[in-house]
């Protein structure tokens, strides 16, 4: 350990080996996956909504990766079947998430398919679930004295809005709701072999 060059070369070779295993090999396996027939690319409105989802940092509290029934009761909670790489072919950046301060959202469009529910919930989550810890996003909405032509009025209980005002969704809120409603992977899974089946394996081992 008296020379810099060998030290650095070996250190980099080890990193290159790790990169081959963790980046290159899975990539080779995953990128060959065909998009499922029933999964549509995002419409322009949904894509804009997804951008808001990303920029507001929804991923820090919401996952988009339901677990296998062998691991947890996700399906029972209405979050959907275990997901596979094919379910994410149109996702960039990925929003798999690592935290469930809120519920999983990969199938929220199938679970809570009402736009006005989503809009109310985005404006003030506590109007729907009093104990919710989710922040409201009032800046995605306008407070107006009365609704104008073509305005989407959000039904908000009186105690959660300024007196005498109506709440109208801005385009950002409508797009975000559009994206949430598009989250629906209830079609049949393809390539289940490409997801982590380690818990199934453990359960099988215990049997």
């Amino acid at each position, binding site marked *: *350990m*008296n*020379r810099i060059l*060998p030290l650095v070369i*070996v250190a980099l070779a080890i990193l290159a080996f790790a990169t081959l295993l963790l980046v290159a090999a899975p990539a080779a396996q995953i990128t060959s996956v065909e998009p499922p027939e029933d999964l549509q690319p995002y419409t322009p409105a949904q894509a804009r909504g997804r951008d808001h989802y990303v920029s507001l940092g929804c991923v820090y509290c919401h996952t988009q990766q339901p677990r296998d*029934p062998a691991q947890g009761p996700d*399906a*029972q*909670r*209405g*979050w*959907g*079947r*275990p997901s596979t790489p094919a379910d994410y072919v149109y996702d960039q950046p990925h929003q798999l998430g690592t935290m469930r301060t809120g*519920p999983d959202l990969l*199938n929220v469009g*199938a*679970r*809570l*398919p*009402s736009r*006005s*529910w989503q809009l*109310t919930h985005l404006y003030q989550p506590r*109007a*729907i*679930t*009093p104990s919710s810890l989710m922040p409201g996003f009032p800046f995605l909405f306008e407070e107006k004295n009365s609704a104008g032509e073509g305005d989407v009025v959000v*039904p908000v*209980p*009186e105690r959660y809005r300024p007196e005498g005002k109506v709440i109208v969704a801005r385009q950002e809120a409508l797009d975000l709701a559009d994206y949430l409603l598009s989250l629906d*992977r*209830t*079609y*049949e*899974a393809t390539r*289940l*072999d490409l997801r982590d*089946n*380690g818990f*199934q*394996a*453990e359960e*099988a*081992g215990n049997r």
Partner: protein
Amino acid sequence: MSERRHKTNDGQEHAAEEFEPYEMHNPVPWPLIALALALAVWGILTLYSTQEAAQDTPPVQQTQGQAQSGGQQAKGRSEAGEALFSSHCATCHQVNGSGIRGAVPPLAGSPYVTNSADVPISIVLFGIENEIEVAGNTYNGLMPTFGHTLDDAQIAAIVSYIRGNWGNDAMPVESSLVSTLRERFAGRDQPWNGGAELAQLFDTGATDQTSANLEETR
């Protein structure tokens, strides 16, 4: 990786290597070697067994909550109803049908659920918004429409489930009734306007009976 000894640049040769004030006999303590061996064995076993098992276990096809309908036995349908309820309704109405105080009306003991089956089916089909009074409390929320996302058999399963649980004791419903109601309100594309609109169209039941029912549940 093993660099051979070589003279160091500063000329301070390390000839007196025997003089090593803190050096141990073997620089790698045997417990560490033992641990490394144990972990290596464990690692090989883990990799092997996970790989084997993952390949042996045929991946189960699961589709979300789309419990197969059409089962003729009541039991099968009740299970399907429970699964559908927990994926589509329990987020708001709660697993025990209690609703959320001040926000979501209860289903347990609600006359809207237990009286005429037309009412719960219509609510599930189209959703409901604005004021509705249930068990003495007034709610002003909004429930989404499920007519587009659930088929007749699924709605029948859900409605049968909520009519027959948590102290509710009303008859299950058939999917034919769901299709009848779909036809009856074919042009409709918006949620019901609160309890008022329901009361105009259906027999939503006397309140007396409700509170009695509710007492029982509590």
